[in-house]
């Protein structure tokens, strides 16, 4: 069996196993898995409105997945997508409501602010990794909490002690009348186009530029890259900055498209952590991220229909997602089993 085929088979098998585990849990806890999954399916594809909302949910997942995947390609594990998303969300909303400008300037400005905030949040762990060899996983986790508390405090200041800011000016909004009319007034917005453009941007950076070549080289073996004359430290910082910018854009999707405001949070949004799942499932490739984001975004939105339609707690979908991550992470064992199965076939012939 070729490597390429196993690379595609491992995520597929993981998804199927995850859904089976979900079904077993539903069965054991006294629910009907068929009606559960039917409710899930209808929650994703039920009518034009739900399809629009599903696409809307996929949008930040695309960008969060890109953020994780991009860092992974440079050998870095960015668990900080969640925090970078939160600061991006705040930055975009702040720019969106602080000034009123013509749309052609305002919207790009708000989007850039989000990317810059996320990039800054990614820059810190990148710098620490490059200069002090501090492991990025711990720093990014800590940065997540710093982001959460700092933005909550800032939201309080901006909204005069309230829990959420005012709505942004329509000149900074990504909302789209065209999409709304198409999908029975769902909140689907132009962000999805931006996200898809970013997928292409990541592909171009990785496959068509010197920067991407160097990043990948550093990811494979940073000693060899150094020996070949590449500036490893610069590449590590750049990888985290670009990854953070993608994550910040994911925040902009929420700030300028879905909600049009930012509210203080008791906990994380979860999009950043799900981004890890998206990237893993997509094998850290731009195209794979589209696949992963579509799957997890759909599952996440479709799950909202499960309590009403089937009386099943929507957490079942989170369990399925966690199990899928487990199986993808344990890809080694799936590969081994696939290899054994293939060998047996050969012997039988």
């Amino acid at each position, binding site marked *: 069996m070729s490597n390429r085929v196993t690379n595609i088979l491992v995520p597929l098998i993981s998804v199927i196993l995850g859904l089976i585990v979900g079904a077993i*849990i539903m069965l054991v*806890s*006294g629910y009907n898995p068929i009606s559960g999954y039917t409710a899930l399916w209808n929650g994703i594809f039920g009518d034009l409105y739900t399809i629009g909302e599903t696409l809307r949910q996929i949008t930040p997942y695309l960008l969060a997945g890109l953020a994780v995947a991009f860092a992974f390609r440079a050998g870095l*594990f960015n*668990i900080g997508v969640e925090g970078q998303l939160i600061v991006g969300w705040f930055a975009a909303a702040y720019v969106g409501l602080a000034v009123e400008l013509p749309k052609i300037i305002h919207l790009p400005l708000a989007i850039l602010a989000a990317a810059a905030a996320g990039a800054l949040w990614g820059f*810190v762990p990148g710098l*620490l990794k490059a200069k*002090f060899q*501090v*492991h990025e*996983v*711990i*720093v990014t*986790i*800590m*940065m997540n*909490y*710093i982001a959460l*508390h*700092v933005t*909550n*405090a800032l939201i309080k200041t901006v909204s005069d002690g309230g829990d959420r800011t005012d709505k942004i000016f329509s000149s900074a909004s990504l909302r789209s009348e065209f999409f709304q009319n198409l999908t029975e007034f769902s909140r689907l917005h132009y962000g999805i186009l931006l996200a898809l453009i970013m997928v292409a941007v990541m592909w171009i950076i990785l496959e068509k530029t010197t920067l991407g070549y160097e990043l990948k080289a550093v990811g494979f073996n940073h000693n060899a890259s150094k020996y070949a004359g590449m500036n490893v430290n610069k590449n590590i910082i750049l990888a985290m900055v670009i990854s953070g910018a993608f994550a910040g854009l994911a925040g902009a999707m929420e700030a300028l498209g879905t909600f049009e405001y930012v509210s203080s949070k*008791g*906990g994380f949004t979860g999009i950043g*952590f799900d981004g*890890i799942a998206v990237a*893993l499932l997509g094998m850290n490739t731009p195209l794979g991220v589209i696949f992963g984001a579509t799957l997890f975004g759909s599952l996440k939105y479709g799950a909202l229909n499960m309590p009403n339609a089937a009386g099943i*707690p929507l*957490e*079942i979908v*989170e*369990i399925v*997602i*966690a*199990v899928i*991550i*487990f199986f*993808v*992470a*344990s*890809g*080694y*064992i799936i590969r081994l089993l696939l290899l054994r199965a293939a060998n047996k076939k050969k012997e039988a012939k």
Partner: protein
Amino acid sequence: MSFIEVLYFIIPSAIFYAAPLILVAIGGVFSEKSGVVNIGLEGLMVIGAFTGILFNLFFADTFGGATPWLALVAAMVAALLLSLLHAVASISFRADQVVSGVAINLLAIALSLYLVKKIFGKGQTDFITERFSRYSVPVLSDIPFIGDLFFKSIYNTSFFAIGVAVFAWFVIYKTPFGLRLRAVGEHPMAADTMGINVTKMRYIAVMISGALAGIGGAIYAQTISNDFGHATINGQGFMALAAMIFGKWHPLGAMGAALFFGLAQSLSIAGSRIPIISEVPSVILLILPYVLTILALAGFIGKANAPKANGKPYIKGQR
């Protein structure tokens, strides 16, 4: 409030908040000393908190005053079982340990909320009735000043946590088991050559970390929140992880860091009643533990060195 009154108020409260952090951080020390990164501490704590509250609610009538302690045992078992999943994935299946830990976190919160909704029909449990009792140490609490500060109406669980930390130090640094544990985390191949079963040691270490994280979660739930919902643990596990690093992977260091973070937490909650502290924006106190951890890692507060083989699966025969 005078300075002494502030101390009487804030020190017991800091110890109170630190107890669960100490236990979970010690759990992290065991796992990481053996070379297995355990980001899943948060999730293990969640399962511990959930199981503890559930046990307490269901068996309070049967066991009366002993319920909270028995709930700790139940929580320990539940978290230990969940940690086995992390062990199997990261030791036997050679999964990325950080990814597996992330999956543990997602799974724990999802599974416990799923069950809460199934059992209670709402997003959080009822409040428990049997709680840990406060306790004054007989002779020591009569010592002026120190007695009031450290030994008067303290939760038993705080003594328990500090006892576990000291015991962990003894086990890791003074016993053959501890030597093997550290060897496996520093240089698994050398340890394997000397006849130590690397896989077995790592399994044991991860299970200890699960057990302690479960107890820590149950203590947190039964002393601080008294019920279980989606925001009960909310980052305590990650704070314990931070304490472990800030304590430089040393049990007593982790305990010290946990006490310090407990102080920061209690200040951020109760600080508004204390002069000077009330002038400091609460956000500073909220982010202090995390900022300090980053500074510690960057070497501004002494160099923190992780065990050498931390995070790497051991593959026999591979150099």
